[in-house]
């Protein structure tokens, strides 16, 4: 009679080898390194919030009227803009407010040269927080420019 119990021991040996190999494979592959590319997920959220807030502020209440954003630029109301932007970007009605900080600047062209006009900031940037920049075209009369011009509102955002 052929004795076949040896087959079980062979399978057991193969199985044990597989377990060891798989374990070694997972141990080598498991350390999770938080690379700069993984920060894209939170960057995307911050970028979307920033663009949305600028869109909300640049949407006029009535057809043909000036938007809220253009109003702040026309009246050179930097504290008003900063307060409103920080409120919109951080306000969460049902839980603790977010802690997003901002620094805004308006870029405009003057005689073929690009100029920049600081338009308020909240919070201090230490240079360590991952920051992203959002921008939106806006038309307004910037102080000292006279006529209505196309300008680019640029806001840098980061979390405290």
């Amino acid at each position, binding site marked *: 009679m052929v004795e076949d*119990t040896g087959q*079980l*021991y062979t*399978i*057991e040996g193969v*199985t044990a080898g597989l*377990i060891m190999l*798989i374990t070694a494979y997972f141990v080598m592959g498991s350390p999770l390194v938080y690379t700069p*590319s*993984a920060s*894209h*997920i939170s*960057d*995307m959220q911050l*970028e*979307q919030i920033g*663009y949305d807030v600028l*869109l909300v502020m*640049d949407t006029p209440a009535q057809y043909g009227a000036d938007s809220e954003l253009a109003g702040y630029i026309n009246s050179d109301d930097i504290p008003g803009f900063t307060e409103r932007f920080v409120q919109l970007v951080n306000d969460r009605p049902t839980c603790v407010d977010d802690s997003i900080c901002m620094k805004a600047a308006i*870029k*405009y*062209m003057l005689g*073929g040269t*690009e100029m920049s006009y600081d338009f308020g900031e909240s919070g201090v940037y230490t240079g360590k927080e991952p920051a992203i920049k*959002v*921008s*939106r*075209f806006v*038309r307004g009369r910037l102080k000292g420019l006279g006529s209505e*011009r*196309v*300008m*680019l509102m*640029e806001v840098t955002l980061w979390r405290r």
Partner: protein
Amino acid sequence: MEKVDGSGQWIVIMGFLVSVGIVFLAIILNQFVLVGQTTSEGVLEFSKNDIRDIRDEIISFAAEDELENSIYRDDMQALALSGKGAIIGYEKGSEEIIGSFTRLRVGIHFNNGVTEYDEIASIYLP
């Protein structure tokens, strides 16, 4: 010599097979993280917000008949290049009267090296 009873080994092997199945499911779950990352990278790369922004601005030019204002055009092109890293352009197309509205066609172009976007927008003016 006493015979070794190996019948319990089947239970061990079946247990191992089940564990392999669980590991396989865990690998599938693990892929979700990667899906989230590649999706968010794709969303970031496609400059949806920039395109919407220049579109909004150009449509407001059309509504106020400022499409041929060369100061607006030059400023906007220079600022788009420096601020958004994109080459943009727009041109006024045909006008057609439909009922009580005028339909104006406007060509809108955007290219930031990754995304190229061209559109002929129809704008209805009262």
